[in-house]
Structures are given as C-alpha cells and as structure tokens.
C-alpha cells in the first residue's frame, strides 16, 4: 500500500510537469494551429538560465523565477518570429514543423556549448528531506512542483477569463477571422501565445530542475511526453491535459518501478500511439466534422 502511495505521489508530481508543458502546446495550437516541436528545449533553456541566475549570479530562487519567465517570453517570441510566422505566411505546415525542430536543435547545441555537456545539479530552494504523508515519502520540492504548476495554469485561466486581452486570445483561438473583425491584431496574439507557451515551459524547467539534473539533454524526452499528454488529453481541453498528465506520470512511475527505468518512457509513447490510432482528438477532445 505504501508502494502504491509512493508511486501515486511521485507520479502526480511528474505528471503535473508534463501538464504544464502540454499547456503550452495547447496555447499555441489554439490560436495558430501550430506547435513548437522544440518546446522541450524551451524548458531546458529556462532551467539553465535559472541555474546561472542562482549559481553564478547568486540570486535567490524566488527572485529568479520572474527573470526566467521573462527570458521564456523572449525565447518564445523569437521562435514565433523566426520559425512560425514565415511558415504561416506561406501556408506551409511542413515549414513550421521543420523550423521549430531546427530551432530546438540549435538551442540544444548552444546550450551544450555554453553550459557544457554535463548534467548539473540545481540548488534546491527547499530542504530535500522527504516528509511522510499517507505512507509515502514526499519531497517538499515535489509539492512545490504541483502547487507551482496549478498556480501557473490558474493564472493563465484567470487572464483568459477576466481580462479583455485574455478574452481576445480566446476569441482568436475560437475564430481567427472573426477576431480580426473585432479589431484584434491576431498576428500579435499568436506571438503572444508563443511567448506565453515558452514562459510556462521555462517556469516548468525551474520547478523540475532541483528534482533532477539540469543539462542540455533534459528537454528532448520531456517535450515528447508533454506532447503525448496534450494529445491524450485533447488539444482543445484544459481539464483533459491535467488528467492526461496525471495518467502518464503515474503509469510511468509505476513502469519504472515494476520493470526497469530504461523502459520508463515506453508506456507513455505507446499510449500516445494508441490515442492517435483510435481517437486522434484526444480522450476529452471533440471530433471535428469534415466539411467538403
């Protein structure tokens, strides 16, 4: 029973990280129909920038967070400007898929050269002694992860529902042409959604960094699994992402425990393939009606 509780709690923490990254996918997909294949690298850069702030510049962890968020916004805007906007203009899906992949590769390589190829430890802001809760050992950092992820998503929800600018973003996602007719600059909305998407990824990066090792390679697997969560939950459903994240996190932790850590990533990927094979709109998504 203890084991089950342990798997659940660890799985939830991991799952929430996936959910936050997947949240970023949703944001850009909703407004522009495009995704950042280098989303994992946005997380990685956020973590490394955060590490530099805390280690080299001696910043306090909590003060570092807004800095990393700002960095994330800039990085996201850059990706949109260079990789996505030109592709949307020439209406080439192939274009933004390949260019976001390319930018991801470049970011990873730059990170390798700037921060080195080794995985680095991230100084945790909270004590690393596990607390005992319902028979499971939980690290305070894991609780921070769950709380941080939820707070981030709630903030964005609040923005979307209560501010006129947030409503403009939702409107663009709903019907881009009609949003333009309202006087909304949809181009800027798309740039903004990419900025926000990278912000959430970078934030997720500094949340998860103290729990694992920080390095140039941390983004790849995370990005792919976050995509799996976005697909499983449904690219149009916010709730679905949280559920999808939790499912994946728990299944993964269980696999890592009962089989071997090497196989940990496999169930998520197989789940992704199954969902795409049977219900591409996701478990919670709505199927689109084909119109000819």
């Amino acid at each position: 029973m203890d084991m089950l509780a342990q798997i659940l709690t660890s799985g939830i923490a991991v799952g929430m990280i996936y959910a936050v990254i997947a949240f970023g996918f949703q944001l850009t997909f909703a407004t522009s129909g495009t995704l950042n294949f280098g989303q994992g690298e946005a997380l990685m850069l956020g973590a490394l920038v955060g590490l530099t702030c805390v280690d080299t510049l001696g910043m306090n962890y909590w003060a570092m967070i807004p800095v990393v968020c700002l960095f994330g916004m800039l990085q996201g805007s850059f990706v949109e400007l260079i990789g996505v906007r030109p592709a949307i203009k020439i209406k080439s899906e192939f274009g933004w898929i390949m260019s976001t992949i390319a930018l991801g590769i470049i970011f990873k390589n730059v990170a390798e050269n700037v921060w080195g190829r080794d995985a680095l430890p991230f100084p945790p802001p909270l004590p690393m002694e596990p607390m005992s809760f319902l028979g499971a050992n939980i690290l305070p950092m894991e609780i921070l992860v769950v709380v941080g992820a939820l707070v981030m998503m709630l903030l964005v929800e609040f923005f979307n529902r209560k501010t006129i600018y947030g409503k403009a973003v939702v409107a663009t996602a709903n019907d881009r042409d009609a949003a333009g007719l309202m006087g909304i600059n949809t181009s800027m909305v798309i740039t903004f959604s990419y900025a926000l998407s990278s912000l959430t990824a970078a934030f997720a990066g500094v949340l998860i960094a103290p729990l694992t090792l920080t390095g140039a390679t941390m983004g790849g697997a995370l990005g792919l699994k976050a995509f799996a969560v976005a697909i499983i939950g449904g690219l149009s459903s916010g709730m679905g992402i949280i559920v999808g994240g939790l499912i994946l996190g728990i299944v993964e932790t269980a696999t890592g425990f009962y089989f071997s850590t090497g196989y940990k990533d496999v169930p998520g990927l197989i789940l992704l393939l199954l969902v795409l094979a049977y219900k591409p709109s996701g478990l919670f998504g709505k199927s689109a009606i084909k119109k000819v």
Partner: protein
Amino acid sequence: MLSIQNLEAGYGKVKVLHGISIDVPKGQVITLIGSNGAGKTTTMRAITGMIKPTAGEVTLSGQRIDGSDSHKIARLGLAHSPEGRRVFTTMSVTDNLLLGAFPRFTGSRPKGDIKTDLEHALEMFPRLKERRNQLAGTLSGGEQQMLAMARAVMLNPEIILLDEPSMGLAPILVEEVFRIISNLKSQGVTMLLVEQFAAAALNVADYGYVLENGKIATHGPASKLKDDPAVKAAYLGGSGH
C-alpha cells in the same frame, strides 16, 4: 461615409468581382442583393480586409482602407456582422459583446461608457438579455444572429456591415431581424446590408444595388427596385437575359 470604386477581387485564380462601385451615404441603409455566387460575400470580405482586393478603391470617411488588415479597418469604426454569424462559440453572450467593443478598451476608438452601452445593447435585443451568461455556441441560429448584430453595435461604429443576416433563419426570425434593422435605421445608424432575400431587404433600405455575376446589373431607390423585373431575373434567370 463608405465609398467603393471599381472594386475587383477574387480567390486565387477565380475572379469574382469585375469592377463594382457602391456608395453608402451617412445615415442611410444601402442594400446589395443578388443570388448566390453573385459575389455579395466576396464584396463584404474585400471591404473588411478578410481578402485583399486586386483592383479598385475602398474609402471610409475619406480614408483609403482597401488592402488594410481587418483589425485596422475595425479600429477605424467599421463593424462587420459576418456571413454565418461567426460568434465566439466558447464564450458567453456578454463576453462576445465586450469583445465587440475591444478597440474601445484599448484606446483605438473613443472609450465612452462601455458598461452602459452593454446594457443598452441587451435592452435592444431582449432575447440576448435573458441569456447573457449562456455560451454563444448553445444559442439558436436566430439568437446568434442577434448576437452578431449586437456585437457590431458595441463598437459604436461609424457604419455597420450586415452580411446575409437572414441566412438559415425561419421566416418568423427573419421578421424579427429586419425589425431590429429598422430600429437601428431609425436611430440613424449607417448600414450596408447584403442579402439574398431581396424583398425584405428592399423594404428596409433606402437604396439598392443588384449584383449579378460580379457586376452591378442595376441600382436605384429601393422602392423602385421592388417592382423591377430585372431583380427577379437576376435570381431565377429567364426574361431580361
């Protein structure tokens, strides 16, 4: 107020409009009628920036707007209730109306009193008032049409473009829609009304243009056009060609 000169537009290879000219004086309701495929919606899209015209001029209050982006044209005071309503289905009625006033929030248009205007709009459209917190996607076709028009009104626009407001609506709802258009007209709102249903449109308009195969076949005071056989011919073929 709004002046269209020799407008040509199309989609890719297909040229739909072959040079049309329409004049919408301030305070009047002008209607553009014609059968399907005649080019009415293309005209609206070319005016409001959803597609870029290939030739011709569109002028709003003396300013050239042809080739501009939709959002810039909206900020100049041109409100568009598009074909098919295009309400924001995942948002509430109130939110839809607030978004209609978006340029007023951001300062691109004179702010005025948005809250009061919201209440006025709901008074004008009682059906919407009952459903102010309902999701726009759950409204019926007629209610969505009301919402699209109310949303356009929320801009406090110089001119409202109405694209086929009667489409897909049962006759009784069509009556209600046109009653509201008359109401707006009596308040002095300038409107360009594009309609498939010639009869209702000509009843409410001051002046009409008949569009056929991308050209203006005939135009004149609405009262005269009502009895013009050329109008019927434009829709159902036959005599006159």
